[in-house]
């Protein structure tokens, strides 16, 4: 029971409206964008929790709603011109405060101090005409009443901390003078300058070489250990997930289709889409199998989301559940093991059989 209530937010407990125990709790989050073509349901009922000191990885194809989720937590959808054109509902609890209904000014105060974000493309998050140092100094002084000299010292310390060589010289460099990997480090320095309790990293290593990726993941891990922050890391690379996640959430078409501990999701995956992801991936650690097992077809439209299970047009097992339930009834997340949830109409027997007999042997 206690175990259930910890991970069972999707099942509606604890009751909506009450502050959860978890440090970050997202409940039934919906983010929709009205467009000329129709309503884009980028995120459509998503729930998860992250404890301090833990890392949740969100995986899924491009367009599945990963970035929209992270921007929602940061309160960035409601900014500027974009803000008029978004419909958001649900709850986002951060350290006992609910952010969806909170005043935007309040959310702004939290941003940068209690929660910070690392983006895929560091250039987009940095100002090209200010030195790296000035940008970190600004980020620090927004939340700390210190003079420039102290803030500069802090900036140098942070650059050193993320492994920039000669930080006292580099602090005066401009973003374009840094290589991709160094920019990513500088952005991490900027994100961490106020010791945030929640760090959201959206594809932080996707644009980087494996060698630099390994350096950055190492850095995020070390810093998390040191500061005990909660980390939400968004990626489409299952290798990165296996490396760094405590828990995993698999997204498809704006919803969670599977969620569980990293061991659950890699060793006992329960959803056909998760099987598809695992089968699509060439693996460096295994005998090269003859063929990859791709997921056929294309990712779904988020304007006309397929009826019933959104994955049904691509799912090889859509005909197994009786009747046309997969095409008419949307499967809800169900507990399939302690802290492990999956949204699929397949019976537990069918799932176990397909996984052990058909999928696992081919991976």
């Amino acid at each position, binding site marked *: 029971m206690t175990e259930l209530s910890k991970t069972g937010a999707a099942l509606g407990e604890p009751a909506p409206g009450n502050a959860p125990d978890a440090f970050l709790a997202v409940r039934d989050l919906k983010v929709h964008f009205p467009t000329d073509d129709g309503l884009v349901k980028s995120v459509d009922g998503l729930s998860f929790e992250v404890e301090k000191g833990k890392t949740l990885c969100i995986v899924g194809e491009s367009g599945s709603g990963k970035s929209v989720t992270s921007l929602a937590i940061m309160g960035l959808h409601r900014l500027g011109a974009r803000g008029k054109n978004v419909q958001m509902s649900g709850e986002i609890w951060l350290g006992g405060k609910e952010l969806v209904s909170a005043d935007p000014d309040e959310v702004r105060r939290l941003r940068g101090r209690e929660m910070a974000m690392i983006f895929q493309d560091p250039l987009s998050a940095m100002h090209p005409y200010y030195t790296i140092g000035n940008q970190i100094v600004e980020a620090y002084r927004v939340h700390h009443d210190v003079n420039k000299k102290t803030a500069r010292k802090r900036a140098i310390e942070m650059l050193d*901390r993320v492994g920039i060589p000669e930080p006292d010289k580099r602090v005066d460099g401009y973003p374009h003078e840094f290589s991709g990997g160094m920019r990513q480090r500088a952005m991490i320095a900027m994100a961490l300058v106020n010791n945030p309790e929640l760090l959201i990293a959206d594809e932080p290593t996707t644009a980087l070489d494996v060698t630099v990726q390994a350096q950055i993941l190492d850095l995020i891990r070390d810093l998390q250990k040191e500061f005990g922050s909660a980390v939400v890391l968004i990626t489409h690379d299952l290798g990165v997930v296996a490396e760094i996640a405590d828990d995993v959430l698999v997204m498809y078409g704006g919803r969670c289709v599977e969620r569980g501990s990293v061991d659950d999701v890699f060793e006992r995956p329960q959803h056909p889409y998760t099987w598809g992801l695992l089968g699509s991936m060439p693996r460096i650690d295994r005998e090269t199998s003859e063929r990859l097992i791709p997921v056929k077809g294309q990712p779904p439209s988020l304007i006309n989301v397929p009826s019933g299970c959104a994955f049904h047009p691509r799912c090889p097992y859509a005909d197994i559940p009786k009747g046309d339930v997969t095409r008419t009834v949307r499967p809800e997340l169900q507990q399939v093991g302690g802290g492990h949830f999956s949204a699929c109409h397949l019976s537990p027997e069918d799932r176990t059989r397909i996984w052990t007999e058909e999928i696992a042997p081919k991976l």
Partner: protein
Amino acid sequence: MSETKKTDADVSTAPDEREVLLKVEGLQKHFPIRKGVLQRQVGAVKAVDGIDFEVRKGETLGVVGESGCGKSTMGRVITRLQEPTGGSIHFEGQDITRLKPAGMRPLRRDIQMIFQDPYGSLNPRHTIGGIVSAPFRLQGVEPEGGVKKEVQRLLELVGLSPEHYNRYPHEFSGGQRQRIGIARALALKPKLVVADEPVSALDVSIQAQVVNLMDDLQDELGLTYVIIAHDLSVVRHVSDRIAVMYLGKIVELADRTSLYEAPMHPYTKALMSAVPVPDPKRRGAKSERILLRGDVPSPISPPSGCRFHTRCWKATEVCKTTEPQLIELRPGQRVACHHPENFADQAPQDTVLLSVAKEAASLVADEVLAESAETSAAVAAEVASPETAGVADTEVSEEVSEKPEVKITKTGPGAKTEDQSTHSGARGTARPTPTDPQPTDEPEAPSQESTDS
């Protein structure tokens, strides 16, 4: 012994017995850097700086390396989309290095390129039919049954519907556009297809569709591929042989199995150790990871000697002064390194590590260093003549185990070397104070703190 990817048809011919289709020698592409009103040349980006390899009929040669190491430039030069500034290219025995456009024209049918960006490489104003039939128009070829019929056949071949003929690129997804690019490349039945990051822009599920497609087409049409990619898992899956590039050079060239199971170049080893493995159980093995320090140096003024010496944990004086040649140390495995992994040392007399190497070594786990010394010693013993094997064994292993001048002792997150002079803060991370006299194995377990909280 050297393995091929496919188990069927082509097992009969080992790749190294197949006919050479493309041969590249000393290939160079330098981009001039000009400055001032006179546009005087002040330097050059040495994107490709003297590489040799050959591609054999029916095989897939994979090319890997970090961003900016010259992979795409190499691809564009061997297809003669860019002019080489040095070296030679032979295709089917013919020297095509300096062929004029008219001379290249018939070869354009035989050599095709597929590009990384499925969005940018298709003209948005042309229909799919127009795009895929362009090669016929350009070459003035009239396929049997007419262009339209042939294009529709090609569309079907790559898994698209013939009805897509009159549609425009924006109506297609990334994976479908990549198929269109492949259909166009295959229109004239090329002999060689050079694919530059053909699946990098695609989601994994779609990536797998395209990889399988390219595989099937190779079997069906007997294609030869050069596949450029930075994803080592993808390259391993598709390639028979693999070339590893670093700063405009090939540092190792080997069949897939040797390269992945017993890499000889330290850079190859580091590159492969950095690939995240999708298996949470393997997290414990992470200490095997070799973190490289810093970034790739600039190709405008590459480091002297071995270009990897500024980041290599095995670099000695000879690495700094003398460029190692790409030589075949094992059958089918060519390596450019003075102190290769999994093989006898090529410069055993040179044992003093450079100080940069000591810093780099502090990021390499003991296990990795020990293992590399062990395998090198074992190989050295094996290579030594049978009569003296016993003697050689002890001699060489001593020598090898002595080689890392500084013994590495691991202490928590920042492993350090005994030689205190090398402590210039490789990563700027928290580490024991430099005056700490003796690196102990483990910091005392903070028993009190842990029970407190």
